[in-house]
């Protein structure tokens, strides 16, 4: 029997490129290690379990080029293994400290098993390279892995120079193919940032579909007959899928969302701040208190008093919440099927790091959701956008407006008083680089080296994460310094290429630090005719 409708879970996995070989330990590299620990490895474990049990499931996942680059980087792989070992060592101390404590000792035991399992998964099974595990699931047809901007550049605010958009897309497709062995057919536009014209560029790179926030399709011109429940075909060719508001708010929302339930793990309480003991201090950076990932409490309530975490209860609740989510999707599809003449698709996109890192039980919720969806009902079936287009691809053509999924729905998050100062520099650097490409179309030797590295520096400076961090006021100094550093490095490299005076020590040092995209070609910044 045909289902009444389809469900597409879309997970956007991304972190900016943070890799500092010039330091032995580096605080901000923990962003990546925490995401591996709580999100990427647990998700892989869930997917492999579903595959093993023969459960029908489909997940669309963007693995951004900086993330793929970090996942395949030997230095970071080695440092993540150290991160795991440090946690396991600290946990030995924690087991002694909490011995006989009926409340916290079981939590410490839970973490010990958790980290032992991660270590086995990462080191023994994946040989430290998680991209190969994702690749295998992709080749088996369970995962649709899509790409993103090369460094998650926010396209609407880089569009002053179309060559920046071209460079972001070109390097993304190339990196995806290099690491995952396939050209991507879909893309997660960074922050769903869209302006008319991007559709045409995507088509040039063979991209068939992308995602927008609800208003991106609802406000498309002409009016979309099916609202957010079916994609539209953009004038440039690719299909635009819209976020479903109802399913979204159940997971994201503070008022109606699941992650705030009182038995789930509390994100903000961490042994790094709660426990003062030498074995905990050994995990800190230069003695500074920071998150360690050992979080022993449940959300409990609004007050400061937090009860110990109980993994079994949290798991029960994740199963209940998955059942609730599925029930609501069934009702939604029933309602839609009552008046639509084609099967609807419910697109539910989230930051991948919501599952696990922010909502610790999120991966279990995904596990329960697909099991229930496959075994308990026939109204709704998991699908990828690619499959939906293959089966139900007669789409209405409509042009989405300029938009994003950021607060307010437009560009305010990445362009406001806290971060507007970066744009004159980003635009002027792109203009300069495309000028150099025009002047030296066939550079080789040192000049090509300097120009290639200048292109890397500019792409890194364009990362939307820096503007985002400046706005939300977490780790602002790091974001400001990274932006300035890449701009300075860009400038010095562009000077070298322009005037022909090369400093080889500098070239080697800077290539060693900002080392992603080994196959970059500065010509990706070639000037493009105006649209």
């Amino acid at each position, binding site marked *: 029997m045909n289902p009444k409708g389809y469900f597409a879970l879309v997970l956007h996995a991304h972190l900016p490129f943070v890799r500092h070989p010039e330091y032995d330990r580096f605080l901000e590299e923990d962003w990546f290690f925490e995401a591996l620990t709580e999100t990427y490895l647990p998700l892989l474990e869930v997917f492999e379990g579903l595959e093993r049990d023969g459960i029908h499931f489909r997940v669309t996942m963007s693995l951004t080029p900086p993330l793929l680059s970090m996942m395949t980087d030997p230095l970071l792989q080695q440092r993540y293994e150290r991160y795991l070992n440090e946690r396991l060592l600290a946990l030995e101390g924690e087991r002694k400290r909490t011995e006989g404590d009926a409340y916290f000792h079981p939590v410490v035991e839970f973490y010990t098993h958790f980290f032992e399992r991660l270590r086995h998964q990462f080191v023994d099974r994946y040989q430290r390279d998680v991209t190969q595990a994702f690749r295998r699931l992709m080749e088996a047809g369970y995962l649709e892995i899509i790409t993103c901007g090369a460094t998650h550049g926010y396209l609407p605010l880089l569009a002053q120079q179309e060559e920046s958009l071209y460079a972001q897309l070109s390097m993304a497709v190339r990196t995806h193919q290099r690491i995952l062995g396939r050209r991507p057919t879909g893309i997660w536009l960074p922050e769903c940032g869209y302006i008319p014209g991007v559709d045409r560029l995507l088509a040039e790179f063979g991209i068939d579909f992308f995602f927008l926030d609800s208003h991106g399709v*609802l406000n498309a011109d002409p009016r979309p007959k099916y609202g957010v429940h079916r994609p539209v075909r953009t004038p440039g060719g690719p299909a635009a899928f819209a976020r479903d508001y109802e399913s979204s708010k159940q997971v994201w929302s503070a008022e109606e969302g699941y992650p705030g339930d009182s038995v789930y793990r509390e994100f903000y309480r961490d042994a790094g701040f709660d426990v003062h003991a030498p074995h905990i201090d050994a995990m800190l950076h230069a003695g500074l208190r920071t998150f360690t990932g050992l979080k022993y409490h449940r959300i409990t309530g609004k007050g400061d008093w937090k009860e110990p975490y109980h993994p079994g209860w949290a798991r029960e609740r994740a199963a209940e919440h998955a059942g609730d989510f599925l029930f609501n999707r069934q009702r939604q599809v029933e309602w839609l099927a009552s008046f639509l003449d084609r099967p609807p698709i419910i697109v539910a996109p989230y930051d991948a790091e919501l599952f696990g890192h922010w909502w610790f039980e999120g991966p279990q919720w995904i596990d329960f959701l697909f099991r229930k969806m496959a075994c308990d009902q026939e109204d709704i079936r998991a699908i990828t956008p690619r499959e939906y287009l293959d089966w139900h691809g007669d789409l209405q053509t409509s042009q989405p407006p300029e938009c994003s999924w950021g607060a307010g729905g437009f560009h305010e998050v990445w362009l406001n008083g806290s971060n507007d100062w970066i744009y004159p520099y980003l635009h002027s650097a792109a203009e300069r680089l495309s000028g150099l490409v025009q002047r030296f179309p066939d550079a080789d030797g040192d000049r090509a080296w300097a120009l290639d590295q200048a292109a890397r520096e500019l792409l890194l400076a364009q990362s939307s994460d820096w503007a985002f*961090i400046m706005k939300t006021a977490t780790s602002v100094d790091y974001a400001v310094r990274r932006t300035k550093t890449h701009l300075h490095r860009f400038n010095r490299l562009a000077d070298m290429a322009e005037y022909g005076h090369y400093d080889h020590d500098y070239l080697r040092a800077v290539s060693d630090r900002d080392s992603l995209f080994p196959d970059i070609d500065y010509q990706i910044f070639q000037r493009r005719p105006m649209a």
Partner: protein
Amino acid sequence: MQSKTVQELRALAQSMGIEGYSRMRKDELLSALKKAERSAQRKEAAKSKAAPSKGKQAEPVTSKGAGARKKPAEEEEIPPAEHIERRDEHFASEEEQVEDAKFMTAPPGMQAPATAFTGDLGEDLDALPPVHGPKLTLLAQKPGVLHAYWSLEPGRTTRQSGLLLRLSYVTEQTAAIIEEVPLPSDSGHWYFHVDPAMPGTEVYLQLGHYAEDGEFITAIRHGAVRLPRLGASSSTDRNWWVNDEDFRRMYLRSGGLLRGDKLTWPGGVSSPGGAITSRFL
């Protein structure tokens, strides 16, 4: 913030209602702005009934055991499902809060460890490389707000008085001036607040001055920028026809109007710092 000029900081301070800003040095301005921002946040948090509690820390657990309690965990019953307000007033959306959590190294309210990063290849973090040549750019920020930045050779505004930014709109029949702003410095930023429902969909920006005969002389111009559109299209596709009532029903159910609700603009006040409520530190 560090990278802003004293003039820009003063303008911000003025918009925040800080007293005595015109006599302050850069570091004084920075700390006054930080203070004003914090007190604005506190007021906002106090206004909200469900003030977040995550920031504060309970007593550190240093010894074995964590205080006397009645029963070990196994004997307790699973607490009933309860939704806890996780939203921090600091964030404009849930998405923002989740994304922010990716970059967090300490809980809110605790001193986050300072970054160890300094560009170690001779980068001067107190300065930025120069932006070459005269530049004028106009970017749409959201419906009703446009952001301009410009950069002239140093000393230009002191040598030539009367320089203006002029924002205009064009329709098929007419072109009209929306606003003219005296150029405050050789380089800087300006946020124009325009009526989102104004006629015409394209605006353009000129930098220039009035000649003695009253004619406007343009030094640099920035081509047409389309204003972001808010709201549903009015045109319907003949092949994919949908009646008004059905479309409206689907639109409302899909949360289509919520985006509009979140948009605010302080009635036509242009300023160098953008919306006064924006977080800038």
